[in-house]
């Protein structure tokens, strides 16, 4: 376009400016940087780095980076270097996650895909990865359909399903606290299926729901919902929100003194959220999906904690760090088993693959269930430690570690009909 203008009305200023622009382009143009070495195995990650799930997304990133370093130190995947490409998917904007997924697949031509912490974004990404036939591991989006009725041959999941979380704690909550439950639920895929799971379990146990407050993702003021919940006078207030929303909600619960009147509990709790809370807000019975301080010693656990401390400014690993670590190691292990990086072959190798001790870092058998591609990981059930009991980093007291298989619904109940492509 510019050229045609020049040829028609040559003008010294324009030419000078054009020359300056071309010169600037040579220095500034980001596009002339050569793409990655062709022989690397590229893993594209679209995960939250901003917003309410930023802390969890960043910890998954640290876990992934550690795994990639370990794999590369041992010769990479089938002799090829592992390269991680991170994109910020935002915490709640599914459109951006779809766009980033398409960019990773179409521009960067990644071999494998990872994402997302947010269930809704994970579902949206899974549709794209399936359309493009790219193997995809969901490291931290819990909603049931991902490995349930929407399960896909190319999609695997590392974290629990919402139903597994509900099953892990429902009976305990019911026995410990009582039968009238009130819910605070994030208004998107994750919250919807987690609530359904808890409600179904509660009904089975003979309890009642006094109300369910649906809160938009990323809100900071829970007061209206909390006042309603208190007025309903339940035995337990079940908090299902996550990320910064969890921090804000529990802070406000303790400010209003609701925890003195009603038991506070929930299903999934995360160390990222607990660390960000004031001590008085650390209350209730919860489950962690992985916890660093374990009763029995596990091979490789101490080394994992030490390595993560080095990468995270001295902090202990969280379930999210572990998810990221497991995700990348799973790809490497499956590729080694399949002797290929072709999506369908690796998908077959991942099905029913058991994680070795130095990756699973927990007592029970941990494996990807072939029928729904869901990882069977243990649930760490216990109580928040408000002050840490002498160890300020130990903010959770694990009462029991339950094997994933015992809390997971059967494959028929998940609604998944897995169809591998021919």
């Amino acid at each position, binding site marked *: *376009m510019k*050229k*045609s*203008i020049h040829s*028609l*009305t040559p003008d010294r*200023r*324009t030419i000078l400016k054009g020359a300056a622009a071309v010169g600037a382009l040579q220095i500034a*143009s*980001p*596009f*002339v*940087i050569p*793409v990655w070495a062709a022989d690397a195995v590229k893993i594209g990650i679209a995960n939250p*780095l*901003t917003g309410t799930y930023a802390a969890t997304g960043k910890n998954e990133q640290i876990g992934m980076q550690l795994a990639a370093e370990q794999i590369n130190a041992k010769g990479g995947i089938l002799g090829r270097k592992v390269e991680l*490409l991170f*994109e*910020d998917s935002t915490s*709640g*904007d*599914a*459109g951006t996650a*779809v*766009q*980033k997924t*398409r*960019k990773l697949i*179409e*521009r960067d031509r990644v071999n494998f895909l990872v994402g997302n912490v947010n*269930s*809704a974004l994970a*579902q*949206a990404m899974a*549709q*794209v990865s399936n*359309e493009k036939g790219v193997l995809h591991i969901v490291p931290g989006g819990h909603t049931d359909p991902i490995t349930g009725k929407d399960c896909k041959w190319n999609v695997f999941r590392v974290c629990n399903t919402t139903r597994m979380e509900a099953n892990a704690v429902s009976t305990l909550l019911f026995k410990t606290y009582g039968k009238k439950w009130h819910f605070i639920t994030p*208004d*998107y*895929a994750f919250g*919807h299926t987690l609530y359904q799971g808890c409600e179904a379990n509660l009904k089975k146990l003979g309890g009642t729901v006094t109300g369910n407050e649906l809160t*938009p*993702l990323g809100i900071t003021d829970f007061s209206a919902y909390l006042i309603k919940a208190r007025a309903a006078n339940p035995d337990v207030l079940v908090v299902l929100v996550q990320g910064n929303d969890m921090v804000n909600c529990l802070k406000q619960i303790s400010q209003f003194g609701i925890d003195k009147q009603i038991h506070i509990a929930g299903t999934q709790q995360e160390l990222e959220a607990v660390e960000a809370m004031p001590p008085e807000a650390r209350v209730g019975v919860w489950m962690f999906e992985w916890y660093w301080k374990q009763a029995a010693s596990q091979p490789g656990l101490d080394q994992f904690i030490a390595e993560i401390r080095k990468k995270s400014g001295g902090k202990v690993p969280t379930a999210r760090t572990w998810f990221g670590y497991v995700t990348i190691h799973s790809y490497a292990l499956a590729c080694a088993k399949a002797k290929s990086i072709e999506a369908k072959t690796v998908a077959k190798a991942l099905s029913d693959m058991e994680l070795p001790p130095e990756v699973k870092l927990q007592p029970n058998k941990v494996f990807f269930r072939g029928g729904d591609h869901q990882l069977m990981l243990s649930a760490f059930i216990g109580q928040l430690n408000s002050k840490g009991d002498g160890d300020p980093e130990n903010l959770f007291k694990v009462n029991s570690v339950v094997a994933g298989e015992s809390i997971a619904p059967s494959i028929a109940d998940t609604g998944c009909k897995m169809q591998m492509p021919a």
Partner: protein
Amino acid sequence: MTSGRMRQGAILAAIWAALIFAPYWMPLFGGYTALGTRVLAIGLGAMSVNFLLGFTGVLSFGHAAWFGLGAYGAGLCLKWIAASTPLGLLAGTLLGGIAGGLLGALLVRRRGIYFAMVTIAFGQVFYYIAFQWSSLTGGDDGLRGFARQPLHLGFATINILNDATAFYYFALLCFAIVVGIMGFILRSPFGHTMIAIRENERRARFLGIAVELHIWIAFTLSCFFMAFSGALYAMVNNFADPRMLHYSLSGDFVIMAVMGGMRTFWGPLLGAVVFVVLQDYISSITVNWMSFIGLMIVAIVLFFPRGLLGLLRQRKAA
């Protein structure tokens, strides 16, 4: 005069040549075909906003609502009614255009900041409907489970679903048709009336022009164009979500129009190219990509108030 017309012709030819050969030259600069398709859909949206802003002088801050309605119309049609790409585009265009036209009738009595505020309010109404009506729209999770369909032309089938280049040319054809209609309207007596209203509304009224009616027609047309671009965008991603209706996206469209040059026909397309490409590239490097776009807007508004294309024109005229 003739040299001016020749120059205009040359510029037009250059724009179309750049667009037609985009799948071939973009990869040389690190681009990819799907990015080009996205630029076309978003650029068409920015040109639709500018149809109203630049040529009628009315600022709508809620145009994303019609964009999003177009997207949902296309998605829902593909998902539930018929798996046909042209029908999806039509359904989206009608949904967004008719909704915009109906509400436009209520809007045209307001001017300036009041008009802009009411458009935000109406836009947010649709945003919250899309957010809350989970059973139909998928709520905050977005609408999944639809995909653009291959085109059946009777004698041949074009696979625009899996062939990115074929889809780019399909989008370019759609873009060309809509831009052609836009250009035709602007050259017609009606288009000149729009510009007369922009330049001096009171004088236009004294000349006997039904100002409200003309603004309403311009608004409605702009909504139809916007909804069409939204429907096209839904097919780029095979996805729609409530944020496509949010006023912050309306703001992005206005930014593209202002950045590119809102008194020019092609300016908003240039603005969209800059906006989308910068976002695509910088967001891979830093999560603070918006700061760079923000700095750029500040620079453009301060130093080139007529936008990037306006700057080129102005210098030529001087």
